[in-house]
């Protein structure tokens, strides 16, 4: 019988000291909780998961990327503030608890999610995930292709669509888009190319998207029509 995710976490930590595996709960009804691996130890952990006789996660079903963009978080914080108040005619410095709204940018990341099953033991799934440090320049994660070859094309796909660089991947090239393509289209902030030149059923959101596109100004003859469409 398959152990719970917590038990697996304990097993990993027992086998690989300093693995630093983190438990990520899943609040939904599916309750498929997952383990967050640290990139440094991910390969070792993966190898353990595959080779351990009891766990035997020999089958990598699914690899995917998730984009978590930088989030602007608006929160109300209680803060202590020293204010100068005139109490009883005397100016005093008083500590005071104030509620204030703070905005902070929670840095985003790119996440790679792996779903593991065991063909030998017929159990699963175990969800493991890894996160990059940010979404721009530090986007390298270790490739798990050497452990499960099934990750080969899927990691390439994640690289293509999300831009996560998998170190140690044998052949990390674009897989779905053409070689000359520059963007990573599955990211949430990807701007689609402007080629809505003519839409018989021109919806506002389509037109808006076309308008919002930086290249929209360049588009020539259709501009007039688009203006009419928006009016």
């Amino acid at each position, binding site marked *: 019988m398959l152990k719970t995710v917590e038990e697996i976490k304990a097993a990993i930590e027992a086998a690989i000291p300093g693995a630093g595996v983190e438990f990520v709960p899943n609040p939904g009804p599916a309750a498929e909780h997952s383990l967050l691996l640290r990139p440094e130890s991910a390969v070792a952990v993966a190898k353990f998961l595959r080779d351990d006789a009891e766990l035997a996660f020999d089958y990598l079903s699914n690899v995917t990327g998730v984009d978590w963009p930088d989030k602007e978080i608006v929160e109300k914080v209680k803060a202590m503030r020293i204010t100068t108040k005139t109490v009883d005619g005397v100016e005093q410095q008083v500590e005071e608890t104030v509620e204030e709204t703070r905005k902070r940018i929670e840095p985003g990341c790119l996440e790679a999610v792996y779903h593991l099953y065991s063909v030998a033991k017929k159990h699963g799934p175990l969800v493991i995930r890894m996160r990059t440090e940010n979404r721009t320049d530090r986007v390298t994660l270790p490739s798990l292709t050497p452990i499960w070859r099934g990750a080969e094309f899927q990691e390439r796909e994640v690289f293509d669509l999300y831009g996560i660089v998998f170190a140690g991947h044998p052949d990390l090239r674009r897989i779905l888009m053409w070689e000359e393509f520059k963007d990573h289209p599955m990211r949430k902030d990807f701007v689609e190319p402007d080629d809505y030149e003519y839409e*018989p*059923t021109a*919806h506002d959101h*389509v037109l808006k998207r076309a308008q919002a596109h930086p290249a929209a100004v360049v588009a020539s003859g259709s501009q007039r029509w688009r203006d009419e469409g928006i009016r």
Partner: protein
Amino acid sequence: MLGEGILKGMAETAKNFFGSYVSKERLTTVEYPEERVPAAENARAFPFLVYDGPDWQAGLRCVSCQICEKECPPKCILIEKSKDKKPDYVGKPQFYPVRFDIDLSVCMSCQICVEVCPFDAIKMNTEFALATDDRFGGLLFSREKLAKSNEYYHSIHPTEAAEVDARLAEEKAKVEAKAKAAAEAAAAKAAVSASPAEGGN
């Protein structure tokens, strides 16, 4: 012996070859323009708009609620709501679409517009022979082209149309009954309010 399997396979094709002259099972061709496979009852091709009565503009069931426009997965519907209102089948004043376009060159025949329509106003047609060399003129269907009578709807999906009619009739009856009840109540109220007066007389 080498060649046995090949001979067995050739016997199979020979059976089909000669069988095609005697059995319908082995000659499944339907010579299309002349013969047609009878359309399945709930076959669907592209949406159309149902109207009641003789005048399509007056009888259009669509109230321009724009749910289908929003739910349409490929976004092929474009609706412009009217400024004024006209009475619908139960007599309630409703908006109507001044513009209802479906771009058949985009439509994926998924039937979601039909599913989400609360007014049974949009239904699936079975007409598929829409080949044209005019992409924009021939495939962008406006209200005029989309509007089809309820009789037409009955002719292509009899069971479903009957259900819809029953449902609408029921609703109408309900509304009418309500109205009647309301009217009666009003009348009664009026009568009641009147009667003391009468009584007061």
